[in-house]
């Protein structure tokens, strides 16, 4: 498939701190490309360099064949941008905002079908101020689509939304995907990346640490299940005991790796059933009481932890 975006060694330095370090990737036409990583991983900076809002300190990128530094006017005509902040005029109505943004482009789509598509018909004459968080994000996407862009940039579109509003937005993004719209989506929700993205670029501290389909990323883990449980507070605080425990957990059947943070232990396993039997036997021997015991299949979160030793939510 044809590449619509090519990124070659983009870097950005703020106050001597490298926030994006020579990232390289390509986005194919029609795919939803996810940038997944914790806050401060460099996702937004990467996106904003592609949007022409920040000047890279190194490297280059092209969108639809146009250089993002030398041909920014051409690039802007073919991209749609949704920023993390609301960035809209509170006192204008949905329809007025759409007309305003449509006027910025040489060629634009009729605004009313777009308003319908984003399920904002009822709010067409309501002011931005009175919209809910989900409605604002849908308007932001409608604004980004007004020039019928080849590439749509969505920067953490569901952050701060309630679960239902997130679902509605997912449906909209999936509908756009069905129509073949290329999208670059940044998020720090692994479930979101898993549901929406064709390929995911895992970022941490300004670097790409993995890039593949969600399925392949999970498969790359040596283990497919995780056994999780919580220890009592006083035990969890005893680091000597924990060190000892971790050693003995490592020897349980089928366990490939052990993670322990705060009160919670995660045993990655090739065979959850055998691990569980062994774990319960260990509990009996050492008379430790576990709580919140559960098993689950491994997720992108586990991939991230394996690669960085930290979870997505702590940065």
């Amino acid at each position: 498939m044809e590449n619509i975006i090519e990124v070659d060694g983009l870097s950005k330095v703020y106050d001597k701190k490298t926030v994006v370090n020579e990232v390289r990737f390509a986005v194919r036409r029609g795919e939803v490309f996810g940038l997944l990583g914790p806050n401060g991983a460099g996702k937004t900076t990467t996106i904003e360099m592609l949007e022409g809002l920040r000047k890279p300190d190194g490297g280059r990128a092209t969108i639809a064949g146009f250089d993002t530094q030398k041909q920014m006017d051409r690039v802007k005509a073919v991209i749609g941008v949704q920023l993390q902040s609301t960035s809209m005029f509170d006192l204008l109505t949905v329809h007025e905002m759409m007309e305003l943004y449509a006027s910025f482009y040489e060629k634009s789509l009729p605004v009313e079908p777009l308003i319908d598509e984003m399920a904002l018909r009822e709010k067409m004459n309501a002011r931005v101020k009175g919209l809910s968080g989900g409605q604002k994000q849908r308007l932001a996407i409608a604004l980004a689509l007004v020039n019928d862009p080849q590439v749509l940039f969505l920067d953490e579109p569901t952050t701060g939304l309630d679960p239902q509003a997130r679902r509605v937005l997912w449906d909209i993004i999936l509908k756009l995907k069905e129509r073949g719209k290329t999208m670059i989506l940044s998020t720090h929700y692994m479930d979101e990346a898993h549901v929406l993205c064709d390929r995911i670029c895992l970022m941490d501290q300004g670097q790409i640490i993995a890039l593949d389909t969600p399925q392949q990323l999970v498969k790359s883990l040596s283990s497919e299940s995780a056994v999780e449980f919580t220890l009592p507070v006083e035990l969890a605080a005893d680091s000597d005991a924990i060190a000892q425990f971790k050693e003995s957990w490592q020897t349980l059947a089928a366990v490939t790796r052990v993670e322990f943070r705060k009160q919670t232990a995660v045993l990655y396993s090739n065979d959850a059933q055998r691990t569980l039997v062994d774990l319960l036997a260990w509990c009996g021997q050492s008379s430790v009481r576990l709580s919140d015991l559960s098993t689950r299949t491994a997720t992108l979160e586990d991939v991230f932890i394996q690669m960085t030793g930290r979870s997505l939510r702590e940065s």
Partner: protein
Amino acid sequence: MRRKAYWQLTLSQLRIFVRNRQVVFWSLMFPVFFMVMLGSFIGGGGGISLGGLVLDEDQSAVSQQLVKKLQTSEVIEFTSFTGTKGSSREQALEQLKQGDTQLVLVIPRGYGERVGQAKVEAETEVEASQVAQVLYYYDETNRLTYETGRLFVSQVVDEFSKSQLDYKPVVTVQEKGVLSLQLEYIDFLVPGIVAMMIMSNNLNGVAGQIASWRERGILRRMQGTTLKASTFIAAQITARLSLNGLQAVIVLLVGFFVFGTQVNGSWWLLMTFVVLGTLSFMSIGFIIAGLAKTPESAGPIAGFISFPLLFVGGIFFPIKDMPEFLQPIIHTLPIAQLTTALRQVMNVGADLTLLWPQLLYLGLWTVGAFWIASVTFKWE
């Protein structure tokens, strides 16, 4: 520049302004409130704050009569001046030079005698050198005081001398001429208030709005489109010019109908200065917006600049009441140029032959500030 984007942005800015009820209310109420407050309290006695000294060197019955007549005036507040003997005239003139008083009237020695002689020779022609004289000293730098003072004094003196000589008073026509220049405090105040409005709306308005749009990512979002910065700025200028023009007209009309403020000069010239003032303060507002890191700091920075100017810039108080050493500095400020120009057009009916320095000066400020703003302006 795309025409459609320009009109849409202008329209949006006007909509935002009109929908922001509080801004509409207060930016119109503020000047009107000031007019009512100051206009009815201070202006209650009529007469603008013209003050003068009268020095009676003659000390005769006739001269004292003239002093008394001068002191009944509501237009100019005459204070009797008695300095140290011998040099009292120099002392009075020194006060004039220092700006402590606006005019000095001297009744020289021998005045009463000459009036007496004139009475005797009432029927014969009096030689010019023999006529009783009063000396009128005025501040050449202050045209308004000069005009008002001269017309007033000559009217009083004329009337007085004629009554002394038993002439029939034939002053009706002259009196009219004098009345047309009889300025009330409200006439002084309204141009100042229009200038104040232009200054604060543009300084605080532009700085606050742009800084807040930047903070909220609105500017950055627009930067992500094919919109040109020049189109954006042109629309800002258009919207603010029409708003300010409208506001100035409303304030002027309120002044005109409610308080009877005079507009003696050309409305076109008046509006030219309104536009020029708006442009120069808008540019300064853009500079502040560039300096301010957050919208929270834009307000205080704009206030830091505009608040002192309210007092020294000739808005409520004449610039000549400011400390002497400050005056040359004050006269370099755009607010001083604007208040002077508006006042001259409205009060005295001055035209461009008199006001070209103000026009030039405000023009230079606009160009200079725009240049600095364009260099320091940041979209994010």
